[in-house]
């Protein structure tokens, strides 16, 4: 048999049927659902009189619309309230397990899946959300789908798909002090562009990836979609198995042994061919911050807003972005003042992210010029864990708001928005025009960098703060 990549292996293992044109019917093992992209899929099922084929393989929770305060009171926005109510009713009618907004297990789907052991190595996992790529950190083939496809998975637990190409991103060497996988992701996207991974599944490999924690790998795979890739993957290793073992939905007993034996085989063959290979030296990566309105518009914190490009098309796009961001070429990144801090989102709201940020915040105060600094844990369990470790006190004492879990200011579908014209250092994944609210200016950063910005009131090289 020809050498195969990890993606090839998981794909082959889930092929139910192959059409003449190469399109494959792929079996789906796991389906996460939330309130925004599913109502019409359920409606379609009802209209056609169809059942859910495998309700036990689906897990539901609200995350996009949920408020992050006053959870005991009714949701004020009637449309948000209705989307939640409809999800709950649909789950009841179709027999899907549902974590309600106030359940401790509730959170952002991409935080909760791995946390519950719902996400497992070698499975196919889908969700009506592009950042489903996150789950690839455990060696699951995970990708976002549209509403019609959600309905298809409901009815058939399978999807008709064309296969993507293979890309390897190899990061070797040791990351510097204060550098996180978020910086690796932003560095990669700056290097290959937001369309660099289009049509590909990216497998991350190399000594720097091996050295990363599972949560750090999640941050990296989460951002694979911002590089245009269909999915991100990391081959499961001993760290993965240790992470999964004992989680509520993970296999147990004899099932665990069978699963583990198979998971250990899940890697790319040494001579497997990739359609594209990107190599990065970990030592060259600095804390990275975006200055524009696309995740590829970034610079090292010790750099500056770049000069306008010579290429006229690129120059026009840059001009528009800088105009929106209220920045001029040549401005040192570390001189950009910040109004809002958001630590949260499916990219960076796990316990390690909060620990990293708290380590910088401890014993310090949020700068008086910062109008709001907010921490939104990724799940109720992350929140409880952080409180058990006293992280909430560190944040609150410094002047941060400590909120309930959800997508929050990542996209502002709930009341958490960045006011027009204000500048936010955000640990989320998209700095698109208006993403955090109409007119909002987003700078994507790592959790320690967001914490550093909160303390000084401007974008700050976290490496200069740590010594204090």
């Amino acid at each position: 048999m020809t050498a195969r990549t990890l993606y090839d292996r998981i794909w082959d293992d889930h092929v139910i049927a192959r059409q003449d044109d190469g399109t494959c019917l792929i079996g789906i093992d796991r389906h996460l659902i939330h309130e925004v992209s599913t109502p019409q899929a359920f409606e379609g099922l009802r209209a056609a009189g169809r059942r859910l084929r495998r309700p036990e393989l689906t897990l539901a929770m609200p995350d996009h619309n949920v408020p992050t305060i006053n959870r005991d009171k009714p949701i004020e926005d009637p449309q948000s309230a209705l989307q939640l109510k409809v999800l709950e009713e649909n789950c009841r009618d179709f027999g899907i397990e549902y974590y309600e907004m106030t359940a401790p297990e509730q959170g952002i789907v991409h935080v909760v899946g791995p946390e519950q052991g719902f996400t497992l190595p070698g499975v196919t996992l889908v969700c009506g959300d592009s950042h489903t790529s996150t789950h690839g950190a455990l060696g699951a083939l995970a990708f976002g789908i549209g509403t019609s496809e959600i309905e298809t998975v409901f009815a058939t637990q399978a999807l008709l798909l064309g296969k993507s190409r293979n890309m390897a991103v190899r990061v070797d060497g040791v990351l510097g002090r204060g550098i996180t996988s978020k910086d690796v992701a932003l560095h990669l996207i700056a290097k290959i562009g937001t369309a660099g991974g289009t049509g590909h599944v990216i497998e991350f490999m190399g000594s720097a990836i091996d050295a990363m924690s599972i949560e750090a790998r999640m941050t990296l795979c989460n951002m694979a979609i911002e590089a245009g890739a269909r999915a991100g993957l990391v081959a499961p290793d001993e760290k993965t198995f240790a992470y999964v073992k004992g989680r509520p939905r993970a296999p147990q007993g004899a099932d665990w042994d069978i699963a583990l034996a198979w998971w250990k085989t899940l890697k790319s063959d040494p001579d497997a061919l990739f359609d594209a290979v990107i190599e990065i030296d970990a030592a060259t990566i600095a804390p990275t911050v975006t200055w524009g309105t696309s995740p590829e518009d970034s610079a090292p914190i010790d750099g500056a807003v770049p000069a306008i490009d010579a290429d006229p098309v690129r120059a026009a796009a840059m001009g528009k972005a800088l105009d929106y961001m209220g920045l001029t070429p040549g401005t040192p990144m570390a001189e950009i003042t910040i109004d809002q801090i958001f630590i949260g989102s499916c990219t960076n709201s796990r316990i390690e992210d909060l620990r990293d940020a708290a380590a910088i915040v401890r014993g310090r105060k949020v700068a008086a010029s910062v109008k709001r600094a907010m921490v939104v844990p990724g799940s109720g369990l992350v929140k409880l864990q952080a409180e058990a470790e006293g992280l909430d006190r560190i944040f609150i004492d410094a002047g941060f708001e400590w909120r309930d879990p959800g997508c929050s200011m990542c996209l502002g579908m709930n009341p958490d928005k960045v006011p027009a014209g204000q500048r936010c250092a955000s640990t989320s994944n998209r700095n698109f025009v208006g993403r955090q609210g109409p007119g909002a200016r987003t700078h994507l950063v790592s959790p320690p960098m967001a914490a550093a910005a909160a303390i000084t009131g401007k974008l700050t090289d976290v490496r200069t703060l740590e010594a204090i």
Partner: protein
Amino acid sequence: MRPFRSVTGIAVPFGAKNVDTDIIIPSRWLKVITRTGLGQGAFEQLRADQANIFDQPRYAGAPILIAGENFGCGSSREHAPWALLDMGFRAVIAPSFADIFSSNSAKNGLALIALPQEAIDRLLAAAQDGTVTVDLEANQVTTDAGDRFPFVMDAFRRHCLLEGLDEIGLIAQREAEIVAHETRLRSERRWVGVQ
């Protein structure tokens, strides 16, 4: 999905180019929970103008829309084809369509017919006072004034439209293979189904 073989009727001679999904259905409609009823929000901004083409009595109930190039560009929202179908359209004829909009339309049984700009110009004129026929079985668009424009559509997409096969319908034909896959999973990887 409702099969699409041939549709004859009034066509709205809209003709606008680069109509994006925000124009077809504004983002505030994304908080809805049904795919029906979106016709109300379709072309909302354009229809705020009393004299808009869509609400002229002579085009009431038209099943065909004639548009300009790059129709459906912008976001991936499936709400765009849902809104058009809810307005009563079964087919859109234009010189070109955006990628994601095309696949979303195909999944919902909305026929997208690509014809050269000269044909579109002629159809825009003919639609003023006559009917248009989109015949998918014969691969042609005709008018009651005697025009005839052949078109080409991706074979798989055409097959699905003609037979009314949505993805679920198509996959249902593979039931035996799905069951075989599930059986294999149960014996080799029982844990996938246990949580």
